[in-house]
C-alpha cells in the first residue's frame, strides 16, 4: 500500500439500469493509488457492468465516477465517452474474451496502442509522411517501449508473429502489455487469469505485482480465481446481485459471513441464523 493513502478512483452511488433490470444498484467504493483493488462476486453480480461504466462503454443511469491523476487533475469518467476515457483520463482495460488485433503482429498491437504519443510527434501525419527526425525519434521510442513490455511478458521471441497465432496464456499477457503501452494511470483487467493454468496464473501474479511496484500503476481487476485475488489484492470489493455486500482487506473478506453466504449459499435452516449475523 502506498505511504499516503489517497484515492485514485472514487465510485460514488453508481447505478446502471437496463430497462427494468437493475444491474448495478447504488454501489460506492474507493480504490487507493498504487493499490491492487479486486472486484469479486458470483456470476451476474454486475462486476463487468461496473467496469463498462468506468471505461466509458456504458453511460451510468446514476452516480459519479471520479478519477484523480497523480498530478492532481480530476476527471469525471461518466462524462467522457469512447476513446476519450483512454486518451484524456488514461484508463486502460482488457477484456474477458480478449480483443487483440488478431491479424496484426504482436509488435504492431503494441505500437498501435501508442497512437497518441506518435500522433503528437508526427504533427498529425505531416512530419510522419515526410520522415522528419522528431517523428523518427518518437517512433523508435515507441518501439523501445513495445520491446520493453514484450520482454516483461516473455513475448519477445513472438514479436513478429500474428497476434492470433499466440497461445491463450500469451494472448492474455499481450493484452496486458498492450494496455500498459497506452501509458495508463489506472489499469482495469477483466478476469486476467481466466483459462490460465496454475503456473501461468503465478506468472500473472508476478507481472501484476511488477507493474504496481515498478511503475506505480493502480490496478482494478475482476477475478474469479481466488488464488490470484487473495495473493495480490490490497483491497477487495464484493458485489452480489448488483449490490455491494462487503469491502475490505483480503483477510476481512475471507471471514465475512455475507461473502461466504453469497459464494457458497446457505441451507434453508441456517437462513435465520445467518441473517441475524449479517444484520438483516
Amino acid at each position: 500500500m502506498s505511504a499516503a493513502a489517497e484515492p485514485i478512483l472514487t465510485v460514488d452511488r453508481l447505478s446502471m439500469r437496463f430497462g427494468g433490470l437493475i444491474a448495478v444498484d447504488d454501489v460506492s467504493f474507493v480504490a487507493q493509488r498504487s493499490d491492487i483493488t479486486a472486484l469479486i462476486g458470483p456470476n451476474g453480480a454486475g462486476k463487468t457492468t461496473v467496469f463498462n461504466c468506468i471505461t466509458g462503454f456504458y453511460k451510468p443511469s446514476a452516480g459519479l465516477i471520479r478519477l484523480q491523476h497523480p498530478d492532481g487533475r480530476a476527471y469525471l469518467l461518466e462524462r467522457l465517452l469512447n476513446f476519450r476515457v483512454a486518451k484524456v483520463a488514461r484508463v486502460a482495460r482488457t477484456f474477458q474474451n480478449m480483443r487483440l488485433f488478431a491479424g496484426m503482429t504482436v509488435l504492431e498491437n503494441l505500437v498501435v496502442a501508442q497512437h497518441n504519443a506518435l500522433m503528437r510527434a508526427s504533427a498529425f501525419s505531416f512530419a510522419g509522411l515526410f520522415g522528419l527526425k522528431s517523428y523518427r525519434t518518437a517512433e523508435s521510442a515507441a518501439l523501445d517501449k513495445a520491446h520493453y513490455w514484450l520482454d516483461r511478458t516473455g513475448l519477445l521471441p513472438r514479436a513478429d508473429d500474428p497476434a492470433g497465432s499466440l497461445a491463450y496464456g500469451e494472448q492474455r499477457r499481450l493484452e496486458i502489455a498492450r494496455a500498459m503501452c497506452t501509458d495508463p494511470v489506472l489499469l482495469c483487467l477483466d478476469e486476467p487469469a481466466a483459462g490460465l493454468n496454475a503456473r501461468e496464473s503465478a506468472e500473472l501474479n508476478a507481472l501484476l505485482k511488477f507493474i504496481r511496484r515498478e511503475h506505480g500503476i493502480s490496478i482494478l481487476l475482476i477475478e474469479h480465481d481466488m488464488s490470484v485475488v487473495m495473493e495480490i489484492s490490497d483491497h477487495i470489493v464484493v458485489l452480489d446481485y448488483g449490490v455491494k455486500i462487503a469491502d475490505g482487506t483480503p483477510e476481512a473478506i475471507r471471514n465475512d459471513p455475507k461473502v461466504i453466504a453469497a459464494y457458497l449459499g446457505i441451507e434453508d435452516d441456517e437462513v435465520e441464523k445467518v441473517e441475524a449475523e449479517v444484520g438483516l
Partner: protein
Amino acid sequence: MEYFVQQLIIGITLGSIYGLIAIGYTMVYGIIGMINFAHGDVFMVGGFIALIAFLALLAIGVTSIPIALFLVLLIAMALTALYGWTVERFAYRPLRHSYRLAPLISAIGMSIILQNYVQIAQGARVKPLPPIVTGSHTLMSSDGFDVELSNIQIIVVLTTVALMVSFSWLVAKTRLGRDMRACEQDLKMASLLGVNIDRTISLTFVIGAALASVAGIMYLLYYGVIDFYIGFVAGVKAFTAAVLGGIGSLPGAMLGGLLIGLIETFWSAYFSIEYKDVAAFSILIVVLIFLPTGILGRPEVEKV
C-alpha cells in the same frame, strides 16, 4: 494473336481504372462495414473537376502537357478528397450509431444528390476534352493489323501501379496504416487504446476519394468525354470488382478490378459488346457461388 494482345492492353487499362475505384469501396467496407454507394459519383466528380481544371489551365496559358497534367492531378485529388470528407462527415458519421441500413440509404441518397448536382451545375450533355496526350507505339504488326500501345494507356497503367504501390506501403508501414488496420479489425478496441477513430475513418474516405479522382482523370484522358452519369456505371463495376476480389481486401480490389476490365474487354472483342455487362456480372455470380468471400477475401470469423 495480335488481336488478343491488343485486347489485353485495352483490358488492363480499363481494369486499372476499375481497380483504383474499387480500393475506395473495399477500404470503407473494411473499416466501417458499409457500402459507400456514393463512391462512384465521387469518381465522376473527380473527372469533372479535372475537366474544369484542364480548361482553366489552358485558358491561363499553361501549355506544357506534363506540368498541366501534374497540376490537374493535384487540384483534382485535393478537391475530390474534400468531397469525400464532406460526404462522410455529413451523410454517414451522424448515422454511425444508428441501425445498420441507415448509412446505406444515406449513401444512395448522397449518390443521387451528387449526380443531380453535377447535372444541374454542368449540364446533362456529354462534355468532351480535346485530346491532351497523343501518340502511340506500334508493338507488332501483321496482315495490316497493328497492335497499338498509346501513350495514354502507358500513363494510366503506370500511374495506377505507382498509386497502388504507395498506397500499399502506406497501409503496411505507416502509423496511419496501422491505425486503419486496427480500426478494421476492432473499431471499439482501437478507440479504447486511444486511436481517434473518427479521424481515421475520415482519412479513409479522403484517401479513397483521392484515388477515385485519379481514376476520374484517367477516364477523362482515356475516353475524352465525360457526363454526369458515368459514376453510376463505373461505380457498380468497381463495386463488383471489390466483391469479386474479396471485399475488405486491398490486393483483392486491385485483382478484381483487373479481372473485371479483362472480362469485359475480351467478351466485347470475341462475343458481343451488348452483353459485356452481363458477362462481367455472370462471372461475379459464378465466383461467389464457389468462393463466397471473393478470390482473396478472408472468411468472416464470428467472435463469441
